């Protein structure tokens, strides 16, 4: 990074942090600190919801995912608008009228204390596992740029986020999210524009689309149904809807955003804004990854995108041959790409089909050579799971973007990371204080006491995130890891809320048993089944509801027998 990049990055972090502290300066009671006294407008909540979901992983990993696997990950979000409609219609009014701080507080009003604490603990485990992954993504950024050790990166990043979240509470979190979302959109737009502008002069935008499409990178919709396929239209619409229902309807890190709304209407509008804006934004991010792929069709990429792994691989005796083969395959693919472009311009359908097939074959051979280099890197590193997908976008940004723009894209990645982490530690602290501490440990403390405990809990969860981030680095494609971990727990969470909203006769014991059965079913599917993770949410939800209804019927039968 050059001085203008550092200036942009540091200025954006400082300005956003100071603004957040200023907005949160009046957070001097628990209601203001955790719920902003239910005073926020829809646009602040809308962008906060969006920023919370768009983590640094979204930038780093989603673009890499698109480079490697094409745009089919887009289908993962197809169920989101449907989930937003259902949450707006049925969940938001209930939470608002219940006047709760957390979604799980409502479960005690509806069921009992044991169901509330079970679900709160599930949330704390699930979100606690994810927060470290969210913080590790910026560590990857600085490792690539500066070669700084991970532990320093996570410490500095984590300290900044924890500081403004502890001081300003939900007001600071929401209003920093609001600004961070604009930085993210600017960074994203400039990265995409640069990827297209840096293509060779003889390659037009339409040529680039043709090349990306022929290589299977623009596969935004797959109609073929397959239980094992993670991303197709059906898993996205139905499996994705269940995951999004669980995430936006039952996960406190999102529920807390719209609990701050000044009315039901404001909260609903914030969710529906996301229903409309999320898919185009995700398309935009994935398309950027596809354009980076085209860029690297004409500009030779490193055989392995992770610099340290490449250095280790290059010390292997077999590396020169592998590198030579990689360079040769790259040139062959480049020639095939130019031939395909020429055929497209000549409008000869037969020739176009032939050239597209040749280009696809060249791409396949190039991938074989790249995988050979990756295999060497894995052997040299002693890390069989080493995956360089998370480093592709960063390599493009740091090597090819002009001064100033690198800083802005970095600022966007940092903004994305900070917005997610702050919301997560804020929600973890809220559940810890409201659902555990105030409910089971200290029931009669003063408002001042709970405010201090809330700040302390925020600081402790921040410290926990910093420590766990050290272990999250080599988990493969981070975006998939986060969603897979979430899917292990979301089915149970969603099931209990479906019971709460739709099954009036189910009582606390039945709901509690249902959640346990649902979680067992999900873990059984994960360890013994061959089902894509998006379906876990649906399976878990169905098992929770089904088993709770059975237990409820059994209890009812017993009761009737008892009363003759």
């Amino acid at each position, binding site marked *: 990074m050059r001085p203008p990049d550092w200036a942009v990055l540091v200025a954006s972090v400082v300005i956003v942090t100071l603004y957040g502290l200023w907005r949160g300066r009046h957070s001097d009671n628990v209601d203001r600190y955790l719920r902003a006294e239910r005073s926020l407008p829809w646009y602040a909540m809308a962008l906060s919801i969006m920023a919370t979901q768009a983590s640094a992983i979204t930038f780093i990993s989603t673009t890499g995912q698109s480079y490697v696997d094409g745009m089919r990950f887009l289908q993962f979000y197809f169920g989101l608008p449907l989930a937003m409609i259902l949450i707006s219609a049925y969940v938001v009014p209930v939470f608002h009228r219940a006047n709760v701080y957390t979604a799980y507080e409502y479960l005690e009003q509806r069921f009992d204390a044991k169901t509330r604490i079970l679900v709160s603990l599930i949330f704390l485990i699930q979100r606690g596992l994810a927060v470290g992954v969210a913080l590790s993504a910026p560590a990857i950024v600085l490792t690539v740029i500066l070669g700084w050790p991970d532990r320093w990166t996570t410490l500095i990043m984590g300290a900044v986020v924890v500081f403004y979240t502890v001081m300003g509470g939900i007001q600071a979190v929401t209003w920093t999210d609001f600004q961070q979302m604009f930085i993210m959109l600017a960074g994203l737009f400039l990265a995409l524009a640069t990827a297209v502008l840096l293509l060779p002069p003889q390659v037009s935008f339409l040529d680039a689309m043709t090349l990306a499409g022929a290589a299977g990178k623009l596969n*935004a919709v797959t109609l073929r149904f397959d239980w094992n396929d993670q991303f197709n239209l059906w898993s996205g619409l139905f499996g994705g809807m269940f995951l999004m229902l669980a995430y936006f309807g039952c996960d406190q890190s999102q529920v807390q955003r719209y609990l701050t709304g000044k009315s039901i209407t404001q909260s609903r509008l914030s969710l*529906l804004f996301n229903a409309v804006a999320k898919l185009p934004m995700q398309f935009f991010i994935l398309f950027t990854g596809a354009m980076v792929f085209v860029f690297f069709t004409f500009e030779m990429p490193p055989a392995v995108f992770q610099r340290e792994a490449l250095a280790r691989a290059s010390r292997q005796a077999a590396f020169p041959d592998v590198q030579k083969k990689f360079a040769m395959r790259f040139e062959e693919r480049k020639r095939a790409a130019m031939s395909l472009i020429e055929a497209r311009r000549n409008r000869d359908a037969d020739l176009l089909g032939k050239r597209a097939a040749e280009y696809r074959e060249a791409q396949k051979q190039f991938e074989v050579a790249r995988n050979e280099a990756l295999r060497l890197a894995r052997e040299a590193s002693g890390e069989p799971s080493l995956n360089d997908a998370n480093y592709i976008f960063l390599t493009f940004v740091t090597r090819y973007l002009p001064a100033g723009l690198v800083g802005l894209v970095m600022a966007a990645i940092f903004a994305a990371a900070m917005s997610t982490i702050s919301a997560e530690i804020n929600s973890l602290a809220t559940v810890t204080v409201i659902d555990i501490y105030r409910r089971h440990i200290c029931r009669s403390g003063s408002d001042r006491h709970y405010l201090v405990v809330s700040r302390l809990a925020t600081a402790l969860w921040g410290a926990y995130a910093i420590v766990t981030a050290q272990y999250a680095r080599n988990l493969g494609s981070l975006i998939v890891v986060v969603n897979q971990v979430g899917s292990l727990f979301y089915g149970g969470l969603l099931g209990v809320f479906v019971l709460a909203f739709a099954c009036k006769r189910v009582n606390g014991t039945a709901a509690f048993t249902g959640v346990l059965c649902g979680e067992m079913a999900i873990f059984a599917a994960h360890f013994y089944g061959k089902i894509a993770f998006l379906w876990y949410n649906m399976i878990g939800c169905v098992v929770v509801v089904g088993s709770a209804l059975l237990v409820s019927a059994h209890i009812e039968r017993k009761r009737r027998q008892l009363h003759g």
Partner: protein
Amino acid sequence: MVRAPFDEPPPFLGSWKRVYAAVAIYLAALIGLFYWFTRAFSR
């Protein structure tokens, strides 16, 4: 602080049902557009 009434009509389209229907139609149109995009460029 004076609070707005809990449940108000939406600021556009007259009722929440119409707003939800509009979002569902928008989703269907978007998926159709993405499908066309996939077919148009995947040879």
